[in-house]
């Protein structure tokens, strides 16, 4: 919202204060304000008179004008078709910077030196008109600043208002805060009409059928007005705050709105059937054409302002085309009403209309300002458009609005703020803001809510008012005042940074991807339950919560490949989402890892190669090892993410904590990946559950180990983990360590078989083992491997 300092001065004496002073204090007290200068730039625009106007000697379409701005005549070359001698025009002298950023320079135009420019509307930022230059009325004083002439010479502020402050959506509202901040008294420019007409009851009537939606409706009538453009002072003020002038009657309602914040509406009395007003709730599927010319379906329960027959305005939001003021209007019915905020809000949202009126009513207007607003508007219409103001006003007020009574205990101020505001100062602040103090005791104050402050109903609200005006910077800072023993974060959260550091340690780059994905990605794999869709998405590509992490990581690989980064090793700690049942949703934190393409090891000493399955399973093993202090068990799993035969479940102590495998080729193709991709995912809660910490260290061995190598030839179908388990079982308690150190296929081993070589360490804690003992263990191992896996010793 914009306000003008000149206008503000009607309510608050601004003398001695710059726009920056005012903006700073407002910002420091809760209304973010930025000085934005005058409506149009160019202090130097000045009114001039065209003395002479002749055709340019060297150009058909140009004129050479002799112009004065009060001093010696100067020459200006002008291209407008409508320029003529005797006109009053707007001159931009050399040096002026125009609204469009153009700077006026002395320049020779086809051989004639021009010392400025005669401006068109669009060039000075006043309108779109570029048909010709702007021609001012003959009485426009030559030499006067053009901005001053149009009443556009005031500095302005742009305000960012929080939704709790509808009262500040006007010059008077902002002035109230300023009075409290600067300790100056408010001033009051509001006038009352001279009631020189017949009694208003003889002319019209108001009936409220919907007191819930419209608790109060005040009407006045002005008869015999003459519709005309507003004078420059009024039009100028409206323009400065972004309101387009229309005609004197409509402009007055907007003027009062921007001045004191209460929305008004003016009806053409003759266009009201029965010349009366009925306020009722809209029924289902009623149609209505608002004065912007749009026919709308009005939601049931909206507040309709009707005449004797039909709706004439959408209450609190916008008037109707059927009753608006036209050039022929002579008699005006003015409306000043109070509408219930939630009712206006619902309608405005449903029909998608945000108007100056709806914005105020839906946040809470001033229920007592209706009287001031309608009186002032009637007085101004009388002043600008003539006519006679009917005697009295109709004040239909079926549902009285009562201000809240608020008790403020002095003790609450330091209890909340940690600072004791002097009592006199607290009282001064509340009074200056217009909050009536009804009684004062040693305990505190009994106050009343002002009708314009819907946000002030409780003690804490008054504490805030005092704090924001007194100044947050006056409240001290306290560090470490009260201590709370820190608690442990739950294990599933505490493990997250650890998982991240392990992933980084094994060389993975962390990524963060969107949880919102395209439906085709969400449908790619089975999730934990039904997918969760956004109902009000803006792009379909981000309309579903992801069910699986793999598409997100593949998409990262795709983006990188498309930029010639041909290989990635990634991890993400993110959520997958599902719907378990009606109103029951699940989000599960997953650690996901993707390897694809080149390992990135490309220097002279590196081995250049692509990521493979065992890189992935090794990373998975490292993470499980770190987390649970034991090796995982890898078992076959036909997951739909993986190439059949490559999928695996990762088990710790028999519990599944994750899955891994080579990503299906058709899935890679969907993401344009030319290389094989390997994917692993862990359930973070599962990992947290198997987390182990070292309880006691093992004593260092005092006796040497006996080392043996063992190469077993087995059918291809026998897997190493099974062999290893067999060896461990048969090896007995003194078999300390088993390592697969070679897998061999080739000469010496027949087709369909492979040789798996193990390195074994045997050790006893209390003595050096004898070869004969170890020989016995080895025989047992070989026998067992023969029996269980059909293995034989490799010759």
């Amino acid at each position, binding site marked *: 919202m914009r306000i003008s300092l000149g206008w503000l001065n009607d309510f608050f004496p601004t003398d001695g204060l710059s726009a920056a002073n005012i903006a700073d204090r407002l*910002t420091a007290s*809760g209304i*973010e304000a930025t000085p934005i200068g005058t409506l149009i730039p160019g202090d130097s625009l000045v009114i001039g008179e065209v003395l002479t106007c002749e055709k340019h000697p060297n150009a058909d379409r140009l004129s050479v004008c002799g112009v004065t701005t009060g001093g010696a005549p100067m020459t200006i070359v002008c291209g407008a078709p409508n320029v003529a001698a005797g006109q009053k025009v707007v001159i931009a002298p050399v040096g002026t910077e125009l609204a469009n950023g153009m700077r006026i320079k002395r320049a020779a135009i086809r051989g004639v030196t021009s010392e400025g420019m005669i401006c068109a509307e669009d060039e000075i930022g006043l309108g779109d008109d570029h048909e010709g230059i702007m021609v001012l009325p003959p009485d426009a004083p030559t030499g006067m600043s053009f901005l001053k002439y149009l009443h556009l010479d005031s500095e302005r502020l742009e305000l960012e208002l*929080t*939704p709790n402050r509808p009262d500040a959506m006007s010059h008077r509202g902002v002035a109230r805060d300023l009075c409290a901040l600067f300790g100056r008294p408010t001033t009051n420019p509001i006038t009352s009409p001279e009631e020189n007409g017949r009694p208003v009851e003889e002319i019209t009537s108001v009936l409220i059928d919907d007191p819930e939606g419209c608790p109060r409706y005040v009407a006045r009538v002005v008869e015999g007005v003459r519709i005309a453009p507003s004078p420059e002072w009024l039009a100028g003020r409206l323009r400065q705050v972004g309101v387009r002038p229309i005609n004197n009657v409509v402009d007055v309602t907007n003027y009062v709105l921007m001045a004191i914040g209460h929305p008004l509406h003016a009806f053409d009395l003759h266009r009201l059937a029965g010349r009366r007003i009925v306020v009722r709730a809209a029924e289902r599927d009623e149609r209505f054409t608002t004065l912007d010319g749009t026919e709308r379906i009005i939601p049931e329960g909206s507040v309709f302002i009707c005449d004797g027959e039909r709706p004439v305005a959408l209450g609190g939001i916008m008037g109707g085309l059927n009753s608006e003021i036209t050039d022929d209007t002579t008699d005006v019915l003015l409306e000043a009403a109070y509408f219930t905020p*939630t009712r206006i*809000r*619902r309608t405005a949202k449903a029909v998608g209309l945000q108007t100056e009126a709806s914005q105020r009513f*839906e*946040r809470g207007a001033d229920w007592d300002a209706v009287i001031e607003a309608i009186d002032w508007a009637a007085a101004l219409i009388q002043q600008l458009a003539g006519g006679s103001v009917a005697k009295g006003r109709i004040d239909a007020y079926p549902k009285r609005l009562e201000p809240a009574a608020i008790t403020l205990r002095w003790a609450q101020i330091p*209890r*909340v*703020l*940690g*600072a004791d505001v002097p009592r006199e100062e607290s009282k001064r602040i509340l009074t200056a803001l217009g909050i009536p103090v009804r009684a004062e005791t040693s305990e505190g104050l009994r106050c009343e809510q002002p009708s314009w402050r819907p946000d002030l109903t409780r003690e*804490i609200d008054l*504490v805030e008012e005092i*704090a924001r005006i007194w100044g*947050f910077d006056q*409240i001290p800072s*306290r560090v470490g*005042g*009260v*201590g709370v*023993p*820190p608690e442990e*974060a*739950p294990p599933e*959260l505490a493990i997250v*940074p650890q998982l*991240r550091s392990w992933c*980084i*340690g094994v*060389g993975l*780059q*962390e*990524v*963060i*991807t*969107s*949880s*919102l994905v395209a439906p085709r990605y969400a449908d790619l794999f089975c999730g934990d339950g039904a997918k969760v*869709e*956004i109902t*009000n*998405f803006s792009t379909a590509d981000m309309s579903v*919560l992801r069910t699986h992490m793999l598409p997100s990581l593949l998409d990262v690989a795709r*983006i*990188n490949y498309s*930029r010639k*980064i041909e290989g990635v090793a990634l*991890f993400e700690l993110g959520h997958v*989402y599902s719907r378990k049942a009606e*109103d029951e*949703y699940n*989000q599960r934190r997953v650690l996901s890892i993707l390897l694809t393409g080149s390992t*990135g090891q490309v*220097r002279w*000493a*590196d081995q250049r190669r692509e990521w493979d399955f065992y890189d992935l399973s090794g990373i998975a093993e490292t993470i499980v090892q770190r987390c649970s202090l034991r090796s995982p068990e890898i078992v076959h799993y036909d997951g739909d993410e993986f190439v059949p035969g490559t999928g695996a479940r990762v088990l710790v102590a028999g519990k599944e904590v994750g899955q891994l495998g080579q990503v299906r080729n058709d899935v890679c193709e969907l993401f344009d990946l030319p290389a094989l991709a390997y994917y692993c995912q862990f359930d973070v809660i599962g990992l947290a559950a198997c987390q182990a910490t070292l309880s006691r260290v093992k004593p260092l061995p005092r006796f040497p180990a006996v080392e043996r190598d063992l190469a077993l030839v087995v059918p291809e179908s026998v897997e190493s983990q099974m062999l290893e388990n067999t060896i461990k079982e048969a090896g007995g308690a003194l078999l300390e360590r088993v390592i697969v150190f070679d897998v061999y296929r080739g000469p010496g081993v027949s087709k369909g078989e492979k040789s798996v070589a193990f390195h074994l360490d045997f050790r006893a804690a209390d003595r050096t083992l004898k070869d004969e003992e170890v020989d016995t263990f080895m025989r047992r191992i070989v026998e067992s491997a023969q029996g269980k896996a059909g293995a034989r010793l490799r010759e």
Partner: protein
Amino acid sequence: MTAELLDELDRIAAQAPARIDACASPEEVEALRVEYVGTKGSITRINKLLREVPADQRPGLGKRVGEVRSLVLQKLQEAGQKFQVEEGARRQKIDITLPGRTFLLGRRHPLTIALDRITSIFSDMGFTVADGPEIESEYYNFEALNMPPDHPARDMTDTYYVTPRWPLRSQTSPVQVREMEKRRPPVRIIVPGKVYRNEDVSARAMNQFFQVEGLYVDRNVTFADLKGTLETFCKRFFDPKTRVRFRPSYFPFTEPSTEVDVSCILCNGSGCRVCKYAGWLEILGAGMVDPNVFGFVDYDPEEYTGFAFGMGIDRTTMMRYGVDDIRHFWENDMRFLSQFE
């Protein structure tokens, strides 16, 4: 035969030390090792012949073989060591500037770096990490935060909905309510997490981002504690010289509410393009927990007070590193990510 062998041993004992000393290279030493004690060496051969010597002469000869063998081995070892020392002292020809074998460490995502730092600063001040669901009920996302249906503050954010009653959380604040329901004061939590806003994705805006929420509720918690805690945070997170400004504002779930600005991290307050020549950057929203919120979790507002705060980290991170397009964080181009520590 014994005498011949003894003679030969004497000869070896006489000649070997001098021959070994005369060696000029480790290769020559090795050749002598083979000649004397290799599997086919002279001493080895004599040793094997011991079996054929009459039993009574065997111990004497055996002793002599042992003596000579020890002598030769010792000389060989000495000579070997001499060459080793010389080898180690000799200048080597190695290009020390060739890049070493790479060992690729991974990296955290820049947003994680920021989240981790924030979390750790608040952990130091006694805050514990907590968490909550992103698909949140309307009750927690709005109602229990003092935003009943039709409350104008619901317009402050554009919210995504899964059903009319289930939004995607538009802030991390619902976790405040959930944590307070779980326990009695004192409560001191920090909540890093993802939130959603229904916005068109552009260089300046993303429809999801990360927030950090904080809450401290106990007896005697005041606005002065809020200021002290957040000033400490800002000075640690940005710079000890950072100035911090508290500006009254409005949030439905705090009263009084404040925006927290810091002096611009790029221009230090003198005004630049990043701070739009204001000298200040808005980085936090905070306030004293509204008594109505305590009503929803059954805390007595006459007994307890508290403060809450929330901040988005994406924009701050953009400013800090001069990232001009927020989408970089979500695209994960390796050339972007690999620039961060």
